[in-house]
């Protein structure tokens, strides 16, 4: 294993993120090749976490752009502070100066509202730019993003072209509610994160939750793994595992039993139909982690 990759793993583990070789290698490549990293996978497997941990590990700022339907360039890139401009015009109505001068004054940096993308390329130190849930943005926005990601420069008509002083480390995440374009994929390195294996999830639980009995941690993990095999409509992610483990730790539980699981199932299952099915399975004693 390459030293740098091991170091990335260590740094991420120090930030309490359990990174497997695939994650560490992808992050390493993203840093080395200067390409954005596109992370896909089911909800709650720690996609967003990669960017957060990376920014802490690199000791740099995290700039986050949360995508949603209808997100447009002005919200993502920059906007003129229109009320402020109007106020300035009002205040200087009778002041001397040509129209051109006044115009230049109100279309200058102090009147610019920087949005995350512009913010990310104008920092002194390369920040980590997290573009979260890109699949929720519209296709036009994806095309626009493609432009920014390929040049890392932005042209503002009144000011000119702003080129990135330092290219940000870009992490994009997607839950696959929509297929992303091939063009965007090609700009990126790709990483698929699946639900963790038993061993990995156990490590995550032990790293992240304090004061948890060793055996209980294993039981929790085993239970979650068997839940995911049930093909629920909303399978619990690692985030849910941790919520649950913390709740159980707070209750000073020593081991799992049916009653305890029933009482705390709300941490894990957030869909009514799923809840019904899990309760049936519980009643029938078919969930293996409880058998022991």
């Amino acid at each position, binding site marked *: *294993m390459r030293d740098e990759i091991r170091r990335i793993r260590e740094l991420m583990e120090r930030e309490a993120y359990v990174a497997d070789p*695939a994650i560490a290698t992808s992050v390493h490549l993203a840093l080395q090749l200067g390409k954005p990293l596109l992370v896909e996978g089911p909800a709650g497997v720690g996609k967003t976490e990669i960017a957060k941990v990376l920014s802490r590990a690199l000791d740099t700022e995290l700039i986050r752009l949360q995508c949603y339907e209808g997100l447009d360039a002005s*919200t993502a890139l920059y906007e003129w502070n229109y009320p402020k401009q109007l106020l300035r015009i009002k205040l200087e109505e009778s002041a001397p100066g040509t129209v051109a001068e006044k115009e230049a004054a109100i279309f200058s940096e102090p009147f610019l509202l920087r949005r995350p993308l512009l913010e990310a390329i104008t920092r002194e130190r390369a920040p980590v730019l997290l573009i979260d849930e890109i699949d929720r943005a519209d296709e036009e926005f994806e095309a626009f993003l493609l432009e920014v990601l390929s040049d890392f420069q932005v042209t503002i008509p009144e000011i000119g072209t702003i080129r990135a002083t330092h290219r940000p480390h870009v992490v994009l995440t997607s839950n696959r509610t929509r297929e992303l374009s091939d063009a965007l994929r090609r700009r990126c390195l790709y990483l*698929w994160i*699946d639900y963790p294996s038993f061993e*990995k999830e156990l490590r995550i639980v032990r790293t992240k939750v304090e004061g948890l009995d060793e055996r209980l941690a294993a039981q929790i993990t085993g239970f979650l793994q068997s839940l995911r095999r049930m093909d629920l409509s909303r399978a619990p992610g690692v985030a849910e595992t941790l919520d649950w483990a913390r709740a159980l730790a707070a209750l000073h539980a020593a081991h799992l039993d049916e009653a305890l699981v029933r009482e705390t199932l709300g941490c894990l299952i957030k869909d009514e139909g799923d809840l019904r099915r899990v309760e049936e399975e519980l009643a029938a004693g078919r969930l293996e982690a409880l058998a022991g």
Partner: protein
Amino acid sequence: MRPVGAAPDARGPDARGPDAGGRENAGGPDAGGLDAGGPGAGTAPDGGGAPDASGGPDPGGGPNRAGADVRSADLTSVVVALTRALRERGVPITPAESADAARALDVVDLRDRDEVRLALRAVLALRVENYVVFDDVFAALFAAAEDPGAPRVPWPRGAHASAHAEAEGATPPRAAATPRPLSLAGWARPEAADDAEPLGVPAMSPHEALRRKDFSDFGAAELDEVTRVARRISRRLATRPSRRWKVVARGARVHTRRTLRQALRTGGDPLVLAFRERKPRRTKLVLLCDVSGSMELYSRFLLQFLYAMQNAFARVETFVFGTRLSRVTGELRGGPYAEALERLGRSVRDWSGGTRIGACIAEFEAGWPRLVDRRTAVVVLSDGWDTGEPDVLAGALARIRRRAGKLIWLNPLLGSPGYRPLTRGMQAALPHLDVFAPAHDLASLERLAHIVGS
């Protein structure tokens, strides 16, 4: 980093080529970015300790065959062999990606096979559907490279439990990851690549293949893909703009009149902008699906589609028919697919029986008149084998046509090349349809969004 001169080790550093060696030695300007991270981040002096495989005795003769002088030119041909094999398996690779793959090899430990695999995969397999093909191709190339004598034996999958891969979750078949020297020499030979393509597999990515696959050989596992298509259709239907405007908090267009009116409050200066945008067009869908015997091949899969549409799009009404018409909107809505099927099974009695398309559609037209209006697209999914009177069908369709925004007939048979819509039922229906289109695969279903929208 191995201590320089610790061993007369010709293959180690050299095998990585001058570039790679240099970077690692220097600690590298690139690595510097990461070094900022924290204590102990500098190039660890004992770093070479771990990839022991390199220091240890070399099991195979492979790496030395090239005279311990594998340069970046050879790395290039490795990438060429890999990308060519991938293309042949239907994973498109652009030259830019090939270049990135070569750069990626520069910054990983070439003796660590799993690391090489993960790095190349990050660059070349750009969607999870391609992971399986990638791992296959990678393993095959390796097998060919390591044992030129028996190139057709694929890498023994899962033969070794891999120390690294264990933690990696569920990526299906993967190459064994025991760190072994990577014999670039054999790997790079073009003929090795040729030899390594014995896997008689369709030359298309699973994704592509799925989209073209006829529904008739569809398994339950494809439900995910059907669901994705349904979501795409519903998104497109839900976001189609109408001619009407509405006021919104933020938008791309300024609502001039409202802005000016608000400006009265601020002394004529439009301090607060009002915005407007197009209202979404409220398209509604009525799906009428034939589940009679002649449709048996397709109905299972069309049901998946109905289920997915019902749960992806709010304004869908679904009916199935054979000899009788059943409204199944409620049965399909909510819960997992298996439960929906169970509910369907309880309430629909005439699966795979005869067909009375005309009578059923007439029943729909008479029984649920309020479901159909100008904004409704009525979609009939049927092969048109009607045992009833064609006039009944023609009459019912004509009446629906007058009230509906659009009348669409999707016929699974239309996907097969030789098919002509000659049945009496189909002949009777054709004059009354706005659109007559195939529905035998996902791609044809996906076009539904465009058809309904146009």
